[in-house]
């Protein structure tokens, strides 16, 4: 994707659509993760993980998801580099004006999410593909990979829990600006609905961030 091939606005349209798509994915992922909390045996989670890991439609969709991440990140980085280049000499004294605060750190929060993603994928996805996940013994689910055990083991490690919590707070910061920003980028701004969308942006960021955070915290302290 050359810098000049698409206009600045087209890049933002693609970026915002990819971002909204990633948000859908996060909500699905969160729902599945929460199964770990609501079902002590871990059975529900394992069934869901198994379904996500074997269903052909989901498997095909997985590549759309990787594509979504790749496009979002690629354009994000290109836009950011252009933005840095647009002001070669910085100000000596810079005050803060009224602005969307987290918009200033999208590239930083984004890169942290990316680093987490790499670690996360090596922890779970690669292990699963590599077939080193313990199998469930006995019961109806015998023979299925026991992803639940893997997760619970991880979250018994305090350092890992702390890392996970930090990353999801940072994801929350990314989303806090991101959701409402995507609407503005797509030209969907309106006196009647924009205040609601801004509120919803904070709400979604909090729900996703806190949602993901409760899981390791509960496992660490209560399981």
């Amino acid at each position, binding site marked *: 994707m050359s810098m*000049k091939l698409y*206009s*600045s*606005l*087209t*890049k*933002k*349209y693609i970026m915002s659509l990819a971002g909204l798509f990633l948000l859908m994915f996060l909500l699905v992922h969160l729902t599945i993760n929460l199964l770990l909390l609501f079902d002590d045996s871990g059975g529900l989670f394992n069934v869901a993980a198994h379904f996500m890991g074997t269903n052909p439609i989901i498997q095909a969709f997985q590549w759309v998801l990787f594509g979504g991440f790749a496009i979002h990140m690629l354009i994000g980085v290109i*836009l950011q580099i*252009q*933005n840095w*280049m*647009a*002001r*070669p*000499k*910085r*100000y*000596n*004294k*810079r*005050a*803060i*004006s*009224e*602005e*969307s605060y987290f*918009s*200033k750190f*999208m590239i930083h929060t984004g890169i942290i999410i990316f680093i987490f993603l790499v670690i996360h994928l090596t922890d779970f996805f690669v292990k699963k593909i590599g077939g080193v996940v313990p199998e469930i013994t006995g019961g109806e689910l015998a023979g299925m990979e026991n992803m639940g055990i893997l997760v619970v083991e991880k979250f018994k490690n305090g350092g890992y829990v702390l890392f996970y919590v930090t990353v999801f707070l940072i994801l929350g910061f990314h989303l806090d*600006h991101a959701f*409402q*920003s995507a609407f*503005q*980028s*797509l*030209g*969907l*701004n309106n*006196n009647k609905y924009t205040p609601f969308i801004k509120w919803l942006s904070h709400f979604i960021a909090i729900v996703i961030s806190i949602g993901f955070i409760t899981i390791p915290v509960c496992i660490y302290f209560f399981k």
Partner: protein
Amino acid sequence: MKVKLKIWRQENAKAKGSFQTYNFDEVSPEMSFLEMLDAFNTKLITEGKEPVAFDHDCREGICGSCAMYINGHPHGPVSGITTCHLSMRMFKDGETITVEPWRAKAFPVIKDLIIDRTAFDKIQLAGGFISSNVGSAPEAHSMPVIKKNADDAFDAAICIGCGACVAACKNASAMLFVSAKVSQFALLPQGKVEAKERVQKMVAKMDDLGFGNCTNTYACEAECPKEISVTNIARMNREFLCAKVS
């Protein structure tokens, strides 16, 4: 009152430039910021020194030439005004006032605080006009315009092209300016005819000139002396998308 002025001094476009700090004691709180600079320049001249070059014209907030970045804000710390409307009353006795030119690749410094805003003219020339000769004002009933559209078009048209949006934006993006110019036409019947072409040409020119991209940070709206709204940016995003897909 007394102030300490920390001003960016740059001989010419090629020179490196640096900050110089001066003590200036003959300031009265009734002075406007530009009057204070005038008085300061008179002092420099009597001392045989080079006065500070800065742009100004109307001194009543409509020409948009008094571009300077004062204490971290375009046009100084008071919102909704230009530098020529800024009063020395707003500063404390003994305060250090940092004065810098706009910083953007597309707005190179010519001398001291004066920057070259030709980039904005180029964007206007790319499409910020209507090509038909509309003659004098028509009979009002011959071309009805919805009141809200007329108001919104007016609110966009009051943009004075000062460049504070670019100066304030962390990405030196010109989206607020360009979107105001796109909106003022897009909302009115005379401008609708060429709307699709206009938005595409103006955006292409804006990208070409090396302005940054919009991250919806909205510092532009907060710092705009004419308080132009970022809803214009959304309108331009909408106009451009529709122009591309239709």
